[in-house]
């Protein structure tokens, strides 16, 4: 991957590089998650499923994906 065409994210607190111009929806797919199976936050703010296509990730963005678990 050409470093000039790459941006660096923090994905669930870990460094993660993606091509520049990657959307949040594309990131979810690239991680092999079903879009409906996870919920997403970008830079600490909830990013609704319906907004992921339009959400072009920027260098330095912090992205967190959540999924259902058991709980009390």
């Amino acid at each position, binding site marked *: 991957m050409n470093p000039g065409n790459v941006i660096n994210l923090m994905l*669930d*607190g870990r460094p993660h590089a993606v091509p520049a111009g990657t959307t949040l929806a594309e990131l979810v797919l690239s991680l092999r998650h079903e879009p409906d199976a996870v*919920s997403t*936050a970008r830079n600490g703010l909830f990013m609704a499923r319906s907004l992921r296509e339009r959400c072009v990730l920027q260098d330095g963005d912090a992205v967190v994906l959540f999924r259902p*678990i*058991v709980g*009390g």
Partner: protein
Amino acid sequence: MEPRARSPTTALSNPADDAWQIGGTRLHSRFLLGTAGYPSPQVLSDAIVAARTQVVTVGLKRTLAASGDNGFIAIVRQALKTTGARLLPNTAGCRTAREAVQLAHMARELYDTPWIKLEVVGDEHTLQPDPFELLAGATQLVRDGFTVLPYCTDDLVLCRRLLDAGCPLLMPWGAPIGSGQGLLNPFALRTLRERLPEATLIVDAGIGAPSHAAQALELGFDAVLLNSAVAQSREPVAMAKAFRLAVEAGRQAWRAGVMAPQDFAVASTPVGGEPVLLGDAP
């Protein structure tokens, strides 16, 4: 203390006459059950059925931090199809209102429900709710259209503020989460019941034994929410049934009117004031 609304005796045997509500949803079971820590998905599923619960709690976790869940969530969803129970997602792990609000929005999207058990922890040792962050989060989430069920302390003024913010009910702790110590401060819980007679109150956290659950219902609380006491028992399915029966017993007792304790004896056998044996012994 008198029950808020004592029903006719004839209604006591008919659970259909004793429904309660969460955000307009009528419920008959007063036993909300957590889904964490069970030895297997099948045991969890069987416990949900044995509890006859209508509300089960679930959570959210970061995807990278969460390894496979071994099918627990799938079986929860399957059990809900069978029983008709509803999901109540929580915001466990949040330390600030801002965090909890964002997580609640994610929970609403993932679980497709506006119900949220709002947890905002303020102390790592006791996992005590942070009253200030909790109130701030509840206020925002009510504005955002959520049905907010706040996990709170038993502080009367905080509880009033949460109701004022639009929470449809309150979930004060009985004891720290997972401690199994029961109702550590019955005075505070009784005070909540007395001072907030119209509020729906659920004891959440700290319940370890069915007798604790029965005590909560006897105090006039509307329901209990627990997890560890069932999940960590030797036989969770049997314990789920035991809690169901205790909750039903406690509720029946509240409706029937528990007698007031007193500091002196009152003979229950009506023998009157005369001595049993007349005259002195020879």
